[in-house]
C-alpha cells in the first residue's frame, strides 16, 4: 500500500498532480480583506436537530424550558448521532417541523429558541493535559461537543477518528479551492496556533506520527501565519499546492500530497490517510482545551449584492435573513440567487428563513453580471471539454448520454459513482448542459433502484422462509401422525402379548364376514349375467 519510495517522496515534499481541473475567477479578495467579525445576537434562533450525516439525536429539552448557550438540545445516543447545542441563552418556543438548509428545501424537526440577550453559557471545563486522558473519553468529548466535519460533508469527527487503522499521515485541509469562500483562509490567518493545536489532538487520537497541512498558493498570509505557528509543531509539515479547482476535494488533495488514490468506494483510511478540515481542527481544540461545544462557525458572506462582504462568527441556528441584514444585502433583480456554499458546489435557498448550520461555510449573493444565470441547454456536440477538466478521469459526456437514456448498466460501467460532483464539467460545457444535475438525478435513481431491489430481496427471502416453514410444519405434522400410528400399533401388540383381547381379532372377523357376504352376492350376480348374456347374443344375431 505505502511503499517506502512513496513515503520518501512525500517526506521530500513532492507535490503530485491530478488530471483535469479548472481556473474559475477566484473573487476571494471580496471577502478576505477584513478580520472575522462577530455577528450580533439575533432575537431568535432555529436549530435543526440533524446537521450532520447520520441520525438525529433524541430531543432532551421541552418547550418553555430556559436553555443556556452550549447546552445540549439533543442526546447523542445512537451510533451515528451527534448532539446539537443552544446557540445562546433563551427560551425554547417551539419544537416541530421547519425548513432547513437543504438543496431540496425540505423540512425537518427544528428547535426554536427566543434569545434573552444575556448570552449566558453553560459551565464547561477544558483539559490541560489531554494525553493523560483515555482515548475513548476524548472521543466522547468531541462527540458531545457536536463536532462534525466543517469542510462540507458533515461527517461526525469522532466517528471518523474511531476507526483504528494504521495511518501514515493526517492531512489538515486548508486548501479552500472553491471560489469566493475565505472562511478557512481568515481562520488560518487569525488562529493558526489553535488550528495546529487541534490538529495535534487529532494526530494523537488517530495514533498517527506525522501530519501534513495543505494550503493553496493563493493564500500567502495564511501560509505565513501557519509557517510561524508550525515552529512549535514539528510533527506537521506545510504543503503549498497550486491554485486550481478542485484541489481541495478530499480525493484530489490526497492525490496532490501523496500521489495515492483512494480506491473507488473506499475511504482514505484504506490507504493509510485521514483528512480533517482546518475549521474542524479549530473546533476540536476548543472542545478539548476549553470544553466548549460547537455553537458558532466562520461563515463567508460575499457577492456583489452585499454591501459589507466579509467573514463572520455566526451562531449555528442564526436565520440566514439575520446574517444578510448584518452584511447589508440588497436584492438586485428577480434573478437574485442566494447560494449556500460556493459558486461551484453550493445550492440555492428558496428563502431566507432557513438557519445557518454546522456545514454552512458561505452565503453567496451574486448579482447577475458576476454569476450569470444558466442559459438554455443546447445539444451536446461531444466536444470533450468536460472530459479534459474532469478530475476523476470520467467521460462526462458519455455519462450525460447514458443518464438521459436511463442506461443504468452503462452508467455503472462508466463509473458514475466516482463522480465527486465538483461541477468542473458543467463549468466548461459550451452547450451549458447542467451535467452535475443529471448525474445527481441518475445517482438518486440508481440508489432508489438498489433500495427497491433490496426491499424485493427481503420480501423474497421472507416469502421463501414462510414457504419453508409451512413445508417443515407439514412434514412435522405427518411425522407426528406416523409416530402416533406406530405407537398405537405398538400398544396393541403389547396388549396381545400380555394376553389381552386383541382388538385386531374382532376386526379380522368382521372383515371375513363382509368378504363372505360379498362373495355370495357376486356369485348370484354372475349367474344372472350369464342368462342375460345369452339373450343379448340372440339380439345381436337379429340385428346383423
Amino acid at each position: 500500500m505505502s511503499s517506502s519510495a512513496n513515503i520518501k517522496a512525500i517526506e521530500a515534499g513532492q507535490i503530485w498532480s491530478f488530471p483535469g481541473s479548472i481556473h474559475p475567477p477566484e473573487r476571494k479578495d471580496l471577502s478576505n480583506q477584513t478580520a472575522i467579525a462577530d455577528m450580533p445576537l439575533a432575537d431568535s434562533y432555529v436549530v435543526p436537530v440533524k446537521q450532520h450525516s447520520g441520525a438525529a439525536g433524541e430531543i432532551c429539552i421541552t418547550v418553555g424550558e430556559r436553555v443556556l448557550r452550549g447546552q445540549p438540545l439533543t442526546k447523542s445516543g445512537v451510533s451515528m448521532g451527534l448532539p446539537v447545542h443552544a446557540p445562546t441563552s433563551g427560551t425554547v418556543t417551539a419544537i416541530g417541523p421547519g425548513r432547513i438548509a437543504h438543496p431540496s428545501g425540505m423540512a425537518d424537526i427544528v428547535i426554536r429558541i427566543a434569545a434573552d440577550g444575556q448570552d449566558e453559557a453553560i459551565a464547561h471545563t477544558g483539559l490541560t493535559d489531554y494525553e493523560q486522558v483515555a482515548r475513548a473519553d476524548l472521543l466522547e468529548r468531541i462527540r458531545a461537543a457536536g463536532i462534525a466535519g466543517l469542510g462540507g460533508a458533515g461527517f461526525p469527527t469522532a466517528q471518523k477518528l474511531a476507526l483504528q487503522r494504521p495511518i501514515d499521515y493526517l492531512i489538515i485541509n486548508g486548501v479552500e479551492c472553491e471560489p469566493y469562500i475565505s472562511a478557512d483562509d481568515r481562520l488560518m490567518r487569525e488562529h493558526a496556533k489553535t488550528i495546529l493545536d487541534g490538529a495535534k489532538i487529532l494526530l494523537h487520537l488517530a495514533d498517527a506520527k506525522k501530519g501534513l497541512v495543505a494550503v493553496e498558493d493563493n493564500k500567502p498570509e495564511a501560509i505565513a501565519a501557519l509557517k510561524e505557528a508550525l515552529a512549535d509543531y514539528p510533527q506537521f509539515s506545510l504543503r503549498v499546492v497550486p491554485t486550481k479547482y478542485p484541489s481541495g476535494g478530499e480525493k484530489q488533495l490526497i492525490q496532490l500530497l501523496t500521489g495515492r488514490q483512494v480506491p473507488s468506494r473506499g475511504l482514505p483510511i484504506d490507504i493509510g490517510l485521514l483528512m480533517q478540515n482546518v475549521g474542524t481542527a479549530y473546533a476540536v481544540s476548543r472542545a478539548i482545551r476549553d470544553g466548549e461545544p460547537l455553537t458558532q462557525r466562520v461563515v463567508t458572506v460575499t457577492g456583489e449584492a452585499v454591501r459589507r462582504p466579509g467573514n463572520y462568527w455566526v451562531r449555528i441556528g442564526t436565520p440566514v435573513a439575520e446574517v444578510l441584514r448584518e452584511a447589508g444585502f440588497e436584492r438586485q433583480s428577480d434573478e437574485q440567487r442566494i447560494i449556500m456554499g460556493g459558486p461551484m458546489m453550493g445550492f440555492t435557498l428558496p428563502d431566507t428563513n432557513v438557519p445557518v448550520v454546522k456545514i454552512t461555510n458561505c452565503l453567496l449573493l451574486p448579482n447577475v453580471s458576476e454569476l450569470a444565470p444558466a442559459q438554455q441547454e443546447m445539444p451536446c456536440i461531444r466536444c470533450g471539454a468536460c472530459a479534459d477538466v474532469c478530475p476523476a478521469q470520467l467521460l462526462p459526456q458519455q455519462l450525460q448520454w447514458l443518464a438521459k437514456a436511463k442506461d443504468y448498466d452503462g452508467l455503472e460501467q462508466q463509473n458514475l459513482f466516482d463522480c465527486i460532483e465538483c461541477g468542473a464539467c458543467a463549468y466548461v460545457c459550451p452547450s451549458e448542459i447542467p451535467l452535475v444535475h443529471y448525474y445527481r438525478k441518475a445517482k438518486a435513481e440508481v440508489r432508489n433502484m438498489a433500495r427497491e431491489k433490496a426491499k424485493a430481496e427481503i420480501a423474497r427471502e421472507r416469502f421463501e422462509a414462510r414457504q419453508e416453514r409451512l413445508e417443515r410444519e407439514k412434514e412435522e405434522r405427518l411425522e407426528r401422525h406416523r409416530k402416533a400410528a406406530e405407537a398405537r400399533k405398538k400398544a396393541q401388540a403389547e396388549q396381545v402379548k400380555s394376553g389381552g383381547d386383541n382388538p385386531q381379532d374382532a376386526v379380522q372377523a368382521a372383515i371375513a364376514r363382509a368378504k363372505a357376504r360379498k362373495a355370495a352376492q357376486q356369485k348370484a350376480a354372475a349367474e344372472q349375467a350369464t342368462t342375460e348374456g345369452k339373450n343379448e347374443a340372440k339380439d345381436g344375431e337379429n340385428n346383423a
Partner: protein
Amino acid sequence: MTFKLAASPHSHQRRTTQQVMRWVYMALIPGLLALIYFFGWGVIWQLGLAIITAWVAEAACMSLRGRPIGFAWRDHTALVTAILLAISIPGLAPWWLIVIGTAFAVIVVKHVYGGVGQNIFNPAMAGYVLLLISFPVQMTSWPLPQQISQFELSFLDSASVIFTGFTPAGYNLEQLRMGADGLTMATPLDSLRTALNHQLTVGEALQQPIFGELAGLGWQWVNLAFLLGGLVLLKQRIISWHIPGGMLLGLMIPATLAWLFAPDQTVSPLMHLLSGATMLGAFFIATDPVTAATSNRGRFYFGALIGFIVFAIRTWGGYPDAVAFAVLLANMTVPVIDKYTQPVAYGHGGRS
C-alpha cells in the same frame, strides 16, 4: 420573498458552441484566401450556395421536426458543414453539385440521425463522398492554379461558369482546364498517380508544370494556410492536438517508411502532407467532435487511423485523395475505439 433556484455550478465559463464554431470558421480564412489566390473566385460562389442551402435545409428540417428554427441556426454547426464542403469541392463545379451535397449533408446525414450531436458520420465528408461517387467528373475537375492557367477569370466570370457552364466569352470548364500544351490537367496527386502507373519515376513526374517546390503548385500553400489556421485553433484550445497529431503521424510514418524503401516509386512524406485535403482534413474535418472518438487517447487512435487510411488509399486505392473516405471509415470505428480507450477513473487502480 422567494429567490431563484438553480442547480450548481452557478459559475460558468462563457464559451458557447456558437463561439467555438465561430473560431473554427475564422481559422479557415487563411486557407480560404490561399484557395482564392490560386484557384480563383469560384470558391466564394460555392460558399454562398452552400451556406444558403444549409440554412434552408436546416430550417426545413427543424420545422418538420417541430423544433424552433432559430435554436439550430444559433449554434452555427450547419454553417461549418456548409463551409467545409464548399472549400472541399472544385471551385468551378456546377451550382447544383454543392446544393445537392450540402442538402444531403444537412438533411440526411445530420437531421435524419437526430440533429446536432447525434450524427454518426461527418456531414460534410458524407456529402463529399456522395458527390464524388455520383458525379466523379465534376468532382475531380479542379481548375488549374492561376499561375499556369491561360485564363484569368473575374468574380463574375466564375459565377457564369458555375451557373451556366460557360464563361461570358464562351469557354467551357474543360477548355479552361487546359494547360499551355493543350492537354487537360489533373490535380497534382492525380497526375502523380497516373505517372507512377505509367512506370515513370517520381522525379520524372514532378517535372510537370503542375508541381511546385514542395508539392503541387498552389496546393502546397493552401495546405500551409490551413495548417496555420489549425495552429490557431490549437492555440485557442478549440481543438486538442490528439486528432490532427494522430492523423499526421498516421500518414507520415507509413509514407516515410515506403519512401525510404522506394523513393522513386512513392510519393514523398512532404508531398503527402502538403497535398490534397491533408491539412484541412487534419485540423478542420477529422476534429469534428460529434463524430470523433471520446477520450483523448481514443481521439489519437481515431486520427492515426484516418492518416493511415489516407496513405493506403492514396497509395493502393482507386482514388487520388482519400480524406473523405478515411474520415467516414474512421467514424464507423468510433464505438469500438471508445470501448477500448475508456480512461481509468480515479480510484480504479490507475497510476497518478
